[in-house]
């Protein structure tokens, strides 16, 4: 691969880093913040299982994203990804809730508008739809799960000390599931826009074919691991001690329900199975992890009688729906113009 290829991939690597730094922290925030799980354990689990999820099951959601607009030139992919990344960075700096998914979707639409490529309405509706029912689904799952956990704990009469031990094990298992689902669903945001213009060729390693797409996902996974190692501790400490104030047991509920939402929108196996049973299946598209988590937290507040329901969280979700994709689309459009007319690069074919 040429040097330009590596350079163009850099924006994707940044997105991967950001996924590791921010979204991985959502999985282990409470566990590490409350010192139930050492950061090192959490970091290793995140790095490994995000990559595993991405390589095994990442392609499904990437296809869903690709349906929106197949960015077919590497320079174009770079601009789309960099615009999304910049939007994420800006909004995070401004303290606004941001979804990587929405930034990427906005940036792709920006590319569509610039190139005159028609935006697939069905794909767009499918993706935007998940922004609404992702959090709702998260709330529903967390609501039910909360009562299941409560029921079990009230009947088992587990000693506080023993419960502590079980909680740690459960936090780790939930974290494994969370990391896997995050990799499977959200890695599409990191490398999805590079798939049609992937500079990688299939490799044959000891008889096992590793496709170019899988190599892309592996690199995304590694970038995520770097994000986890370098920056996520800070974010975890913030989430654990300031933002949501979850107890370790409720943190398990939030992690599992968030991971379930991401998993439902990422698993090809599940989709095929549901279709074979004649059931309506979930579209394979990237969904916002942080919004699924916020939905889950709202679900728990409702299960507790709605006393602590934080309506600001709801407002922030709705705000994110509008602000993030719009700014990313705008930025992407302008940046593509510069890339094509100032730097003389092919941004579409």
């Amino acid at each position: 691969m040429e040097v330009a290829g590596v350079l163009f991939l850099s924006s994707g690597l940044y997105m991967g880093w950001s996924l590791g730094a921010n979204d991985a922290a959502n999985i282990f925030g409470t566990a590490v913040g409350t010192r139930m799980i050492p950061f090192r354990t959490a970091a290793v689990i995140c790095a490994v299982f995000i990559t595993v999820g991405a390589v095994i099951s990442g392609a499904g959601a990437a296809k869903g994203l690709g349906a929106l607009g197949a960015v077919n030139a590497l320079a174009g992919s770079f601009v789309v990804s960099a615009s999304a990344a910049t939007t994420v960075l800006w909004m995070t700096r401004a303290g606004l809730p941001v979804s990587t998914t929405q930034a990427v979707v906005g940036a792709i639409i920006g590319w569509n508008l610039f190139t005159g490529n028609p935006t697939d309405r069905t794909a767009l509706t499918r993706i935007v739809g998940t922004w609404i029912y992702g959090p709702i689904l998260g709330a529903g799952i967390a609501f039910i799960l909360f009562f299941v956990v409560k029921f079990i704990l009230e009947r088992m009469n587990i000693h506080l000390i023993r419960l502590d031990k079980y909680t740690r094990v459960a936090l780790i298992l939930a974290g494994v599931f969370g990391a896997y689902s995050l990799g499977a669903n959200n890695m599409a945001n990191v490398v999805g826009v590079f798939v049609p213009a992937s500079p990688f060729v299939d490799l044959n390693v000891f008889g096992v074919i590793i496709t170019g797409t899988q190599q892309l996902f592996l690199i995304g996974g590694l970038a995520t691991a770097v994000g986890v190692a370098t920056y996520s501790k800070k974010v975890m400490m913030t989430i654990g001690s300031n933002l949501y104030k979850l107890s370790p047991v409720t943190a398990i509920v939030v992690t599992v329900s968030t991971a379930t939402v991401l998993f439902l929108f990422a698993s090809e196996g599940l989709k095929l199975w549901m279709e074979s049973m004649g059931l309506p299946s979930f579209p394979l598209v990237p969904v916002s992890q942080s919004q699924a988590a916020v939905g889950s937290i709202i679900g728990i507040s409702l299960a507790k009688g709605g006393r602590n329901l934080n309506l600001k969280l709801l407002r922030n979700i709705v705000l994110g729906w509008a602000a993030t994709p719009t700014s990313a689309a705008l930025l992407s459009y302008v940046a593509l113009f510069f890339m094509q007319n100032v730097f003389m690069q092919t941004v579409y074919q």
Partner: protein
Amino acid sequence: MKQRSEGSGGLFTSRTKQLQLEMDRYFSLIDQGALLLEEAIKRYLEDRMEDFEKKSAEIDTVEHEADTLRRQIKHRLYAEMLIPDSRGDVLGLLETLDNVLDVSKHVTTHFSIEKPEILPFLRDDFRELTESVVKAVLELTLAVRAFFREVYRVTEHLDKVHFWEHEADEIEERLKRKAFATEEITLFSKRVHMRYFAERISLIADEAEEVAERLAVYAIKRNL
């Protein structure tokens, strides 16, 4: 290598199990302290001084063992990073529980040193006061045990702690009124002496109630 503190369990006892056993042992020492106090005062009121001293010495031993155990549990909770979320609450609980035992010990020690002369017409009141106080403590340890296993049952025990503390207060007042109204006690200092001991015994129930107040908050925090 991790250091194992003295008295830790055998090869096949897990650290969790060991800590659970230590905590249970600690709570039964609090129970024992209360029961010994009842026995000691009963003997004092029956003028069986030798038996009283024996029971009083037993309370000292129990108090000492409880102190050691409490330090051991505290060390274990911190050294092994257990229950980081509610560690502070649990330690606060153990320490205030210790006050209950401390006051019981002081009561018997002061009986032993000052040897207050309790006239027959006040003996039943002292006996009744001690019984109420002991009931408050026993109910408290039930609440504490429930906190660790069945948190939803804490409140019903705490209600009883408050009930017995209130009873103790009433008996204390009645006893003091009797002591100051009677013609049988001639010296003012002796009346004050009766008041002092009634208040001291009743203080045990007050300490129990203080633990109960804390426990009520901790129990809310422990709900999911």
